[in-house]
């Protein structure tokens, strides 16, 4: 190994990717609420990124092998900046948050608890998540917390490609009668009960709104999302997403699912090989 190769990753660990900011610009109550919000976003992207990476090498098309690996890299990259931002707000470590928490401590939406399953299922889940995430990001686009607003401005441009890709696949699967459409319909029916979990109300949500950090309550965002996705579902002759408001326990993993326990075992396996190792 050359000197060059040996030293690059070390520096990577030393310098966080998120610009440093003064955490005192946020009042302590708002800081807790922002931390809670960021943790939900980070865990969503992190967990989905790892599910995506499960397609690497075995996607139904070589192109999709590349696409899903790229999607995974995007999402884990987004999770990284959110974890680093939390680390700055709380003094915690981004690596600890990502790789050294117990499954029950994660706050990802229940929608992301399902295993990869089949291709139609992965597409349906990703489309539901990407559309929901877009509505959430739009509600943060004018956030009064500048470091958050800046990164949202960047992330939105990348997520546009995810939406575009999922939209094309939804049309492709729904447009082929027989197995593709049947599998898509089955996937949407199985996922619909958990679709709203992305909009699970956050602790201290009213503080976020009062401080101009988030533009609307999660329940309101869930209505906005339902009408946004309604357009394509109707066009493709697929059932609309069920009415109702997100329940309070949509991000509760006090009793983690088997599928998430398994995924957690996978994504923490390297970190657990040797405690405290640096590379």
């Amino acid at each position: 190994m050359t000197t060059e190769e040996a030293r690059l990753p070390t520096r990577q660990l030393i310098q966080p990717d998120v610009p440093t900011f003064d955490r005192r610009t946020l009042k302590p109550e708002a800081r807790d609420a922002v931390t809670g919000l960021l943790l939900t976003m980070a865990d969503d992207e992190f967990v989905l990124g790892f599910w995506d990476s499960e397609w690497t090498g075995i996607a139904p098309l070589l192109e999709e092998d590349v696409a899903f690996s790229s999607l995974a890299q995007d999402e884990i990259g987004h999770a990284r900046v959110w974890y680093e931002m939390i680390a700055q707000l709380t003094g915690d470590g981004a690596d600890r948050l990502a790789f050294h928490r117990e499954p029950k401590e994660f706050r990802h939406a229940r929608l992301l608890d399902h295993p990869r399953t089949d291709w139609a299922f992965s597409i349906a889940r990703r489309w539901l998540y990407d559309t929901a995430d877009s509505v959430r990001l739009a509600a943060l686009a004018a956030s009064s917390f500048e470091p958050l607003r800046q990164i949202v401005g960047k992330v939105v441009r990348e997520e546009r490609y995810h939406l575009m890709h999922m939209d094309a696949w939804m049309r492709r699967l729904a447009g082929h009668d027989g197995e593709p459409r049947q599998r898509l319909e089955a996937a949407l029916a199985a996922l619909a009960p958990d679709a709203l979990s992305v909009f699970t109300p956050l602790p201290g949500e009213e503080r976020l709104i009062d401080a101009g950090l988030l533009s609307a309550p999660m329940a309101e965002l869930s209505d906005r999302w339902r009408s946004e996705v309604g357009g394509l579902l109707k066009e493709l002759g697929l059932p609309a997403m069920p009415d109702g408001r997100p329940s309070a326990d949509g991000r509760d993993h006090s009793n983690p699912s088997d599928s998430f326990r398994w995924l957690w075992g996978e994504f923490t396996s390297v970190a657990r090989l040797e405690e405290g190792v640096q590379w």
Partner: protein
Amino acid sequence: MVASDGRNPAVTPGAGRFARSSGRRPTAKETAPTIATRPLESAVWAALHDVHDPEIPTISVVDLGVVRTVETEEGRVRVQLLPTFVGCPAIEVMRVAVEDRLSEFADNVSVEISFAEPWTSERITPEGRRVLRESGFAPPAPQRRTSVLSVLPVLPVAECPYCGSRNTTLENAFGPTLCRAIYHCADCRQPFEQFKEV
């Protein structure tokens, strides 16, 4: 010459496998007269042209539009870099390469990642677009404004870098790196990559 931390400054990504092979880099001593006769800041900008994107080693970080600001004062240089994509693994390599390239200009060189403004494909300079085309990459298409949830039925068109045809189709919005998409040219029947429009 060995830097104070024991690293040999000659072994840097800017001079090694990450960069276009452009021969030996002038040492600080050789470039010193130039620096003395013009502002430090423009010398730094000039030096930054030697640092290349590790994923497309023909384009410099300046032409890629990754360098946001250069601030200089006595004994201190501060540079801000904008990542092309949030999860871009190359940004770390670029940061280290920039630090190493600038180490001759000041004792205190800080290279920071910034999100103060989003990097967009509009930031690629005309020279950068030329270099991309020459290297077989279609430069990004001009930016179109779209709403967050638009489903984009109209896909961007890329010009084939080999034959100039616009009779091309997007094969995959996701290419070998986060910032590249894959197209196919129906005229010269070549697949090619486009630097994504973001």
